[in-house]
């Protein structure tokens, strides 16, 4: 076994002994070194000017390490500076989510699930929903910015924006109450795939504890839930809001 491992190892390395080339994992720039945020600001003043108030500015620490600011995400910038910009000299997170995954490891796992926005297929990018350079990275998330959180979703999902004649008040809390936009094991990126999703807000105290009822809307829904989830055909189909049924039936 030792011989086999050593042989493979040796073949692998001896084969490339005479090659002068560096290979790196995705989202790294081979041969580049850190230059510091001030170098970046010389050309990207607009971005740098807003960065101090952004969520990601909290990541910078007070030391001499240049890698704790712009280059923490964009990679060492020496080649980019030397070339005056250009393709392949700097990491562009819009082209690959690997930069964001370096810290947001959990999001790599979520976007790798079968039910997720097609980030891994390169059809959307992290910055389609998040602004890493200015303000709250998650827009309107309880803060005092002018934008609302739901705008992040409804700019693409306009059918769910409303206003509806009868709105589902869960929409007040935001889309993420029911959906995990980064990915879920469940269809439609649902946080839960069954009636537990609705019960979170709608389960009510039964008349007698443990009496075998599932009380929703003052009625026992046990037999109905036996047939399927809450939003199936004939039940509460209009989950985002309805223009014809106060009970969000259709």
């Amino acid at each position: 076994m030792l011989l086999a491992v050593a042989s493979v190892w040796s073949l692998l390395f001896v084969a490339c002994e005479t090659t002068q080339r560096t290979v790196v994992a995705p989202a790294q720039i081979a041969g580049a070194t850190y230059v510091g945020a001030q170098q970046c600001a010389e050309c990207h003043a607009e971005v740098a000017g807003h960065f101090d108030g952004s969520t990601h500015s909290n990541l910078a620490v007070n030391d001499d390490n240049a890698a704790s600011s712009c280059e923490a995400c964009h990679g060492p910038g020496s080649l980019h500076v030397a070339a005056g910009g250009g393709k392949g000299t700097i990491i562009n997170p819009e082209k690959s989510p690997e930069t964001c995954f370096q810290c947001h490891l959990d999001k790599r796992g979520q976007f790798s699930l079968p039910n997720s926005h097609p980030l891994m297929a390169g059809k959307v990018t992290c910055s389609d929903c998040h602004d890493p350079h200015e303000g709250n990275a998650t827009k309107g998330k309880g803060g005092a910015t002018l934008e609302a959180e739901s705008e992040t979703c409804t700019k693409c999902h306009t059918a769910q924006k409303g206003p509806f004649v009868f709105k589902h008040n869960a929409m007040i809390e935001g889309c993420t109450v029911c959906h995990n936009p980064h990915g879920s094991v469940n269809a439609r990126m649902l946080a839960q795939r069954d009636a537990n999703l609705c019960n979170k807000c709608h389960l009510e105290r039964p008349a007698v504890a443990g009496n075998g009822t599932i009380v929703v809307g003052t009625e026992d829904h046990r037999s109905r839930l036996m047939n399927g989830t809450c939003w199936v055909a004939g039940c509460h189909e209009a989950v985002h809001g309805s223009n014809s049924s106060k009970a969000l039936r259709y």
Partner: protein
Amino acid sequence: MQAKRIFLLRTAGLMAGATLALSALRLLGAGTDADALPVFESHIKVSGRPASVTGDKAAYQSGTQQPKAGAYGIEEFRFTRELSKDVSLQVDGRALSGAEDYLAQFRLTKNEVGTSEVGYKRFRTFYGGFGGFFPTNRFWAPLTNPKLSTDRATLWAKGTVALPDRPVFHFGYTNELRNGRKDSTIWGDTDFTGIPIWSSNSLNPISANRKIIPSYVELGERHETLEAAMSHTIGGTTFDLRLANDRVNNLDTRFFNRYPGELQPYPNIPSTPATLKSPSVANNAISGFDQQGISSNALSFTGKVSTALSDQMTVYAGVGYQNMDGDISGARINTLSIMTATGVKYLVGGFVDRGRPPYSYQSAGGTMTAKVFTGNVGVDYKPSKDLSLGAAVKGEDLTTNASNPVNYLNTHVNLATGVVTVLSPVYSPNYGKIHEKSWTPEVSARYTGFKGITFYGTASYRTAPADETSTYSSVGPGAVAGPIVSSSSASYANRVKERHDNYKMGANWRVSSYVMLRGEVFRKDHMNSFYDAAIGATGRYLLDTQTEGFQLTATVRPLLTLAFTTRYVGLNAEMHTTVDAAAEYQSADSKIHQFGETIDWTPNSQVYVQGNLNVVFDTTSTSYPRAGGNANIVLHNADNNYWNASVVAGFVVNKATDAQVQFTCYRADNYDASLIATTPSGAGIKDYTATIGLKHKFSDSMAGAVKVGYFDSRCDTTGGFTNYKGPLFYASVDYAF
């Protein structure tokens, strides 16, 4: 034998030693890239990704977002040219047939003047079209028209004028389209579940009916935006103005089937004596569609100003106004199949004596309006170079009005005679108005006074009282042989109160060049209450939600060539409801633990290995197990546990060739087939993919890549009906010009 073993060990030792020596030498020489593979600026990359899928091709497409027939064409095209000393042109393109992935973008830049850009892009998203699987009789009903995909396309033109020391102007137009067909989780009913059906209801404690028939939606959506913006800085003051017109035109139609293949006999099977019924006579088939349309036009204005009063203090303010109006359309047309004494009748909006209403309607023309005033004001104060403080408040006044009167279709059938009578539609008004005023103060702080450490925190408090009024009338069974009737129109007036408290604190500590630690704790305390002003305390609904969590990230680099990044996210949420006069009740308890690990190993400059692992424990408990009795066989906890992992290794093969080996896997084991008293739930999936690829430089202007691999996906949730597997191929040629 002994001598041979010693020889082998010695040889292995020598080779290992030589390898280590070479590795060390290579580390010393890291950064010498005389043989670097080229990164082309102006180039065209042509690729092909054929597919050979065994199993469910729709599942393959939705799971991988790759077309079953493969994708071929121009994967990447870029052309850059300096047209003059200060004018440059950049053209980007992509055209992958099969994936229907297209891009054409032209960008013209003139230094110190501005840019103009026009473009078009489009991509396709695939869907599986699954319904539910029932394990008792292995019931599985795929869609008969499984070509499910939607295309998102965007056409845009935009320009920026940025003259030195002048206001920067921006103009833009986008036209986004979303068309195609996607699946829906609003599944229809079936009685073909293998559960016995007796003619006497009392003998059916477990219903045979399960809503697991798949359905789909035809999308036709357009969103146009025309905008003009200006930004200007005078001294320490920056102004931003934006004027935009948004137009939305959507018409989405969901098609569904309920009880397909079922038709009750006439006369119906008597309950005495109790006899077993075939599922094909348990109910009557219904097929139909539900169509919802909106056409809206919104004008919005945003203005922001920011002034640096000193090096320490910046104040800012903003206002926003949006005025939207639009039209609502809708139709829900159900066709009921029903057996009468004179044969089968097919009725739109059909009902029988004292029967349930048909829920088929047509909109009589609806309208909606929305007015939103938003404003904020804030200050950023930096009393020292290490301390940053921020305070802001946002106010919003939102008013929405929407009405959509509908006519319920009303067709009576006499089962004894087979006579069908089309009656006058039943009118039902629908009206809703919301007026909400919200205030959100927010404070934030950051301190960097300790070397290598940053502390930060934010807190916000949102309160949003609102008045909601609505008018509604339901429809229901009428007199024998009479029309369905609409209840008298009722008006509702809800007093709504929202309160959202959000807190977050965190710290980053660069312990040394080898260790970086980040931590953050957060808490959200949200309360929503609704009181029906007319009913009082017995007409209330109150939801109280507390969410607490924290996330920790540690990056440790014990060696120059080795890094570990570990992240843990933990979240605990409780929700409590109070309805009418009842006491508070805990409606939900959610717990999530997410562990993530990335290991980067670069033994030398010509090899890298990266491993990723995510393990998630995610459970939500609502009624189970507290409900007790038969309720506990209807609903269990919602478990969303999974783990996924990937390993990628790249290495230099020779002067002109790099190789990459990749392995990914995903596993979720939440499927609970024992819940036959309801729709079995929980995701149970196993996915594996392994690939090996080579990238080769043919010349300074040409490179190529090939990749081969294998994928295998097995799904318990769908009873294995959506399994797929097969080889994976990819080849590309990249040519610079």
